[in-house]
């Protein structure tokens, strides 16, 4: 899996309310429409400025708050290549993997807005092309890699008829 795109920077504690706000609750039944508002309450221009394959790059505790799976869903539907953060909140992390959205834990202080990044999952690094610097990725747990490779949890169950993770 190789990914390349531009970095869009966000701070610490980006909540699911920033990503998929409660005031847009009625759009949850229309995810492509909701995706047009992705991360709107953190950066109102993000959805219109990003291109397919670009990256969300944040600080600590990305995705805290509600269990709404719509948050990772609309990040994925918007075409974001991966979310890079120093750390992720638990439910968001689980949801993202379950639906096949790639999350990368690394030192995001070394990435600035607009930097061109290339992610190499296999070798375990982020190449900051703009800064000519390689950042190490915290390796994903095996179960996460398996779920991601199979296209998420529903696909995993459809393939194996049951859990085949342990």
């Amino acid at each position, binding site marked *: 899996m190789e990914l390349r795109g531009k970095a869009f920077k966000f701070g610490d504690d980006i*909540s699911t309310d920033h990503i998929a706000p409660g005031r847009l*609750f009625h759009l949850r039944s229309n995810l492509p429409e909701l995706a047009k508002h992705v991360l709107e309450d953190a950066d109102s221009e993000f959805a219109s400025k990003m291109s397919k394959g670009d990256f969300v790059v944040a600080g600590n505790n990305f995705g*805290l708050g509600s269990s*709404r799976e719509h948050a990772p869903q609309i990040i994925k539907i918007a075409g974001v290549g991966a979310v890079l953060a120093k750390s992720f*909140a638990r439910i968001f992390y689980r*949801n993202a993997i379950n639906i096949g959205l790639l999350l990368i834990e690394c030192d995001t202080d070394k990435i600035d807005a607009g930097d061109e990044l290339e992610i190499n999952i296999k070798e375990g690094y982020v190449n900051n092309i703009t800064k000519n610097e390689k950042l190490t990725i915290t390796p994903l747990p095996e179960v996460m890699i398996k779920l991601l490779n199979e296209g998420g949890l*529903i696909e995993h169950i459809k393939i194996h008829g049951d859990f085949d993770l342990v």
Partner: protein
Amino acid sequence: MGQTIAEKILSAHAGKNVVPSELVISKIDAVMVQDGTGPLAVNEFKKLNKQKLFNPQRTILFIDHAAPSPRKELSNSHNVLREFAKEYGAVLSEVGEGVCHQRLIENYINPGEILLGADSHTCTSGALGAFATGVGSTDIAVVMALGKTWLKVPSSFKIVLEGEFQKGVYAKDLILHLIGLIGADGATYKALEFTGSAVKNMSMSDRFTISNMAVEAGAKAGLFETDEKTYEYLKEHGREDKYKKIKADSDAVYEKVIEINLNDIKPTISCPHTVDNTKTIDEIGKIKVNQVYIGTCTNGRIEDLRIAANILKGQKVKEGTRLLIAPASRKVFLDALKEGLIETFVQSGAAIVTSGCGACVGVHAGILGDGEVCLTTQNRNFKGRMGNTEGFIYLSSPAVAAYSAIKGYIADVREVL
């Protein structure tokens, strides 16, 4: 080696002795969704092509987040849940029956069980000695079909509570204080286990408030051992036969031990826009409030309403401030009616809102205007939480909320107690 409460419950459900960080496939006793997460779970469940739910009697669908519905899209989402319940025999909790977490503790969840909910505050049931945690809609869809899921066994923090609350200080102040202390990600992936001599004096309502907010420190669960109070609570709700002693071993291993003396806690407020941005009432200064909201899964129980009514009795809500009160469930509403609390609230100038999540989720029933300040007994104050990114949300106990409604600014309730 001894086990924590989380390790014991997960061991019993995985059919082997588990250790922290281990990945297990675990049986799940009950699952829930609400109207915000349920339709997506239904959608994902249908992709699995299963004709039946694994356990329909313990698949519970709540219509509480946008109830009654403020718009047609949400009305249609509600109908998705109604039709699913009918077709598959799942349990449905209708408009006005109450907030999912309150209804789960009143009616459905028992000590030693595992509850997975597509709602982050599912951890509320941890106060009953159940391993209860929030997950997403896809996770729930799979449990609906198979009755099991994968779980990573969390390591635990032992929170040792000693001493007693001083006048005007409540469980809400304690949990806000703890989150301020360890941070909004201070317990990410961990189970919090509350213990110590102060716990046995705490009401179940106090314990629910504390467990409810475990997730605000990032925790996977907020657990209490069961005791006479748990038994009495279950008995009051017709489930005493479900009582079970749940307790950690004395030689259980904890990743961290945090000791808190309740005597040292002051009325505590979370300031915008994160829950861990806490101040004591002494530090807060005079902050004018436009709206006060008393209710939610955190603090909408009868005990909370009694505290608020005691302060509001014979008083009027300050002009320029509005007070919204939502009993957490129909049972709480009825009890409050019988006790005369609702009359006290209405006399004071409060508006009573349908039992449900109401203003807390920013969908309807109390959305803030630009620049407005809300003091609320809910569990979250993220930017935009109450439907407007230009609003400012402060969190407090019901006592501080009720007194502040009278004063028109965030006020120290100890003045009148």
